[in-house]
């Protein structure tokens, strides 16, 4: 019994407890937080972010970084919105957008794998190209609004519970699939091997280039899926999705790294991180706090998480040294 209690309170599960405490606090403090519409809103925004950063999780786990995901998502959302506006059927438009986004991901993967340039720089370059193109085709920084309300946008946007449930199931399903690949296949093994020691995994014969290329392609593809869903949910395409989307996405991944595999980004952790952030954002307004407090809390949580990881690593290293003696 005692063992169970201590294992539940290990640092890996800290975030889950903080999350539960936060939800209970919001429920007690603000009655409007408990309403069904607020719950739907929170699930909606968390599922968009969750899809956007699903690929980013693996990139960070393999020791790289992708800062272009908001730009690629923005480009995809603008392409979808403009395509639908110009008469492309809504069943085709998303695929055009996702294909366009994936090209950018493959391009940054190519730069990183072939020219060995730091992933931060490559994705900054690709990101600014994507934002530039999005702004040019949208004709400005202003969002492209969908005027012709397509059936699907109406159903998804107004948040019919059935459609919402279906979408949530799709997101959950893809997360479970990714979890399976991550933990039960060689690709998953290679992914963490790359993050642990690049040189060693190269010597062991892991095809680094192929994996890096496909991860960046995948990340961009999922980011564009997020952008497409953004259009379907909010009926507008946003050329510049920086600022909050960037902070939210990064926070979800880095907070998620705290859960399950202490210190390593993993998909289940990212999922919890995304839900956490969405509930945080949706809970602040009902209890009468401004949105910007949320940004501060997210930053503080990120630093707090990094400190916990650093402490647990330090302890592990100390224990290893003691064992060696």
């Amino acid at each position: 019994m005692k063992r169970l209690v201590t294992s539940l309170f290990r640092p890996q599960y800290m975030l889950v407890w903080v999350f539960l405490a936060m939800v209970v606090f919001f429920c007690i403090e603000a009655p409007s937080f408990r309403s069904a519409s607020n719950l739907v809103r929170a699930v909606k925004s968390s599922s968009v972010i969750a899809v956007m950063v699903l690929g980013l999780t693996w990139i960070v786990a393999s020791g790289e970084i992708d800062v272009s995901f908001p730009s690629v998502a923005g480009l995809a959302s603008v392409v979808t919105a403009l395509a639908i506006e110009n008469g492309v059927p809504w069943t085709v438009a998303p695929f055009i957008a996702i294909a366009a986004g994936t090209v950018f991901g493959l391009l940054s993967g190519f730069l990183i794998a072939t020219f060995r340039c730091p992933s931060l720089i490559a994705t900054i370059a690709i990101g600014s190209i994507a934002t530039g193109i999005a702004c040019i085709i949208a004709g400005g920084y202003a969002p492209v609004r969908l005027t012709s309300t397509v059936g699907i946008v109406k159903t998804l946007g107004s948040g019919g519970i059935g459609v919402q449930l279906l979408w949530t199931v799709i997101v959950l399903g893809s997360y479970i699939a990714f979890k399976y690949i991550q933990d039960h296949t060689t690709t998953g093994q290679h992914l963490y091997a790359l993050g642990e020691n690049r040189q060693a995994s190269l010597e062991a014969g892991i095809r680094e280039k192929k994996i890096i290329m496909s991860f960046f392609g995948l990340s961009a593809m999922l980011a564009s899926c997020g952008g497409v869903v953004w259009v379907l949910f909010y009926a507008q395409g946003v050329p510049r999705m920086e600022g909050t989307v960037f902070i939210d996405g990064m926070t979800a991944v880095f907070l998620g790294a705290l859960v399950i595999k202490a210190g390593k980004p993993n998909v289940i952790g990212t999922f919890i991180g995304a839900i956490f952030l969405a509930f945080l954002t949706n809970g602040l307004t009902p209890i009468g706090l401004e949105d910007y407090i949320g940004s501060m809390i997210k930053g503080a949580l990120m630093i707090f998480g990094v400190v916990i990881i650093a402490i647990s690593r330090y302890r592990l290293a100390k224990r290893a040294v003691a064992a060696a003696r």
Partner: protein
Amino acid sequence: MVQRRKDISSELITLGVFCALQIGIMRVFTVLEPRFMSVDNLLGLLNLVAPMALVGLGLTFVAVTGYADMSFHFVSCFGGMTMSHMIAQGLSPLPAILIGGGAGAAFGVINGVMIGKFKLPDMVATLGLGAIAFGMAYLYSGGTQITDHFNDSGIKLLYTARVASIPLPVVLTAIAYAVGFIVLNRSTLGRRFYAIGSNATAARFSGVRVERYVIAAFVICAVVACLTNIIKMSALAKGEIEAGLMWLMPAYSAVFVGVSVFKKPTVMGTFLGALLIGTVQKGFLLLGKSTYVMELVMGVLLIVSIVVSRIDFKEIIRRRRFRAELAAGGGVS
């Protein structure tokens, strides 16, 4: 010694290629639009390059020590809003600017302590602090613009004043670059920054107080970013929170176009990078393209410079000569 000389000549070739590229780009734009070489346009070009070069200069210090800073653009939002708030409260420009820069310095110190002393991962820790700074930028006005006293306090002079007919921001940037060049390239201090970048442990055992230098690098980066954003706000004549967000990409682009020329972050390289990007952007603006092209240009140039820097020009020249010799001499026997 031989190895060193070889490095330098390879570097010179790359530098030559970049200068040729710069001159070539200016020629192309002059042919397309004769007004490109006019005094007005060249002054405008300097005005465009100056802030990019300035914010890049700060980031160069962090890049030299081998870390990444993902917070300076968020911090510059906070520094700029602090300055705007002080102006709105009726403070005169100089103290307001100093307080704005001081706010940036505080965040720089926290960054440096987190990364230099407690060895937290740089990207996550700076991003976290950046999110806090971005939230704090909203504290003054809750998200609305600050315009009080911007017209009558003289803060706009920071952008409009001219020294010997050269705009003040350009003069300030030139001074900052002179100081930056002397510190990083002509002083022991600079050698220590580079020593930390190439091997922090070795630097520590050689008696360099690594923590202090890392903190100094982050402070310089944050303060310079705040000053750049303050100049931008004085140009806009209002305090706008999201004005600072745009500095991330120009700074990294300038620094890394420079890195691809000199193979390491340098003051000269960052300036060349900013100049190259600014020239192309100004050219497109003059040709009547919309301002959205600017980001596209930045990304494309960054990729071009990465690709160019990976091409070994000396090797290509050597091979061509070898082939020519083969053709002339009829084989190597």
